[in-house]
């Protein structure tokens, strides 16, 4: 039951993001404004979920804090920021070469962390996907 309610909440956020895009599209907003609206709703959904988990406390909140309160998370956070701001076209910069260089650095660092943690081949086929 918890899974179903989680699924419904997630779907509502997604539908809201898609509806916002469509409304802005029909209203003649620019591409970057549509992206900003779409991204903001999805970011709001993630912040809402994180805040709800932290407010509820307990083991899950500790788990979440462990994930985010980590220097290794900086790489992914920086890459996500670049993708969100430059990759979606919200910010049009003429320094694309610099952005490219920074992206390479942070993503390489993320890959290095992942390899160090032996994070690979963790998906196993056991028939549950049928």
């Amino acid at each position, binding site marked *: 039951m*918890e*899974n179903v309610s*989680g*699924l419904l*909440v*997630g*779907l509502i*956020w*997604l539908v809201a*993001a*898609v509806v916002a*895009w*469509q409304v802005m*599209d029909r209203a003649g907003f620019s591409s970057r404004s*549509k992206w900003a609206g*779409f991204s903001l709703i*999805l970011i709001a*959904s993630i912040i809402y*979920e994180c805040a709800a988990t932290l407010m509820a406390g307990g083991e*899950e909140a500790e*788990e*979440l804090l462990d*994930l985010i309160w980590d220097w*290794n*998370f900086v*790489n*992914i956070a920086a*890459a996500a920021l*670049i*993708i969100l701001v*430059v*990759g*979606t*076209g919200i910010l049009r910069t*003429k*320094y*694309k*070469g610099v*952005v*490219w260089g920074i*992206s*390479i650095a942070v*993503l*390489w*660092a*993320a*890959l290095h*962390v*992942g*390899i160090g*943690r032996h*994070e*690979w*081949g*963790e*998906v196993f*086929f056991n*028939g549950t*996907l*049928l």
Partner: protein
Amino acid sequence: MRLRRYFQLGTSLGINSWFEGFTSKSVCQLQTKSICVPVLNCYACPSALGSCQIGTIQHFMVVHAIPYYVLGFLGLIGTMIGRMPCGTMCPFGFFQDVLYKVRSLKIRIPEFMRPFRYAVLVGLVIILPWMTAENWFSKLCPMGTLIGGLPWVTISEDVRSMIRDLFWIKISMLIFFVASSVISKRPFCQIICPLGAFFGLFNRFSLIRLKWVPEKCTHCRKCQEICPMDIKVWEGENTGNCIRCLDCTDCEAISVCTVFTGARLAAERREQEISTELL
């Protein structure tokens, strides 16, 4: 035949070349399975040599962990070549390209449906697996059904006995995408594919880019006609929709450049425009 067709065929066969899986009825367990392939290919295919990156991301979301390895690996590919793996290597993209060759009524997918793939990426691959501890995208993936589910159901009686309602939903989705691929260009890539959505986010600042020169464009729209994603190149050559198949570079108005040469050319053109205005 275009050169990229050989790449597509070679990659499709290359990453699924552990044919022993069909006779031994087991999933390949070689070291290669530790590597995620940068294209949509099911881990569960009996002959698959690599693993599925979208499945791996979902797995990490389910166990509430950050997939540093997969994001770093895919991100590095994205920053180098953007969405090029979709256009030149992806087996499911190749499958759709081939289906579109079938003579039939052809329709265009409305542009407003394209952002839906970002919702699939964020929703079915990240948020919902995190919240519900279920791999929602893998459960519904038509590529998984095509090269994972169907072969297993065919070769293994044990797997056949595990079929539940979900399997028929997956089959329906596969049929839908096969049918829609005959009448429209790459419907899965345009509307659904989360991997394409991820790579597409790098298109605007990846090393390899496209350059459209308006002065050379005759607005004949042939680039849109031959584009497997039905893109209007003149409205934005480096948007997330472009799969960098490079078919449109047959036209002299469109060329391949790098993130560095593209910026230089744009600056030169601006200077030229200013000097023309001054004259």
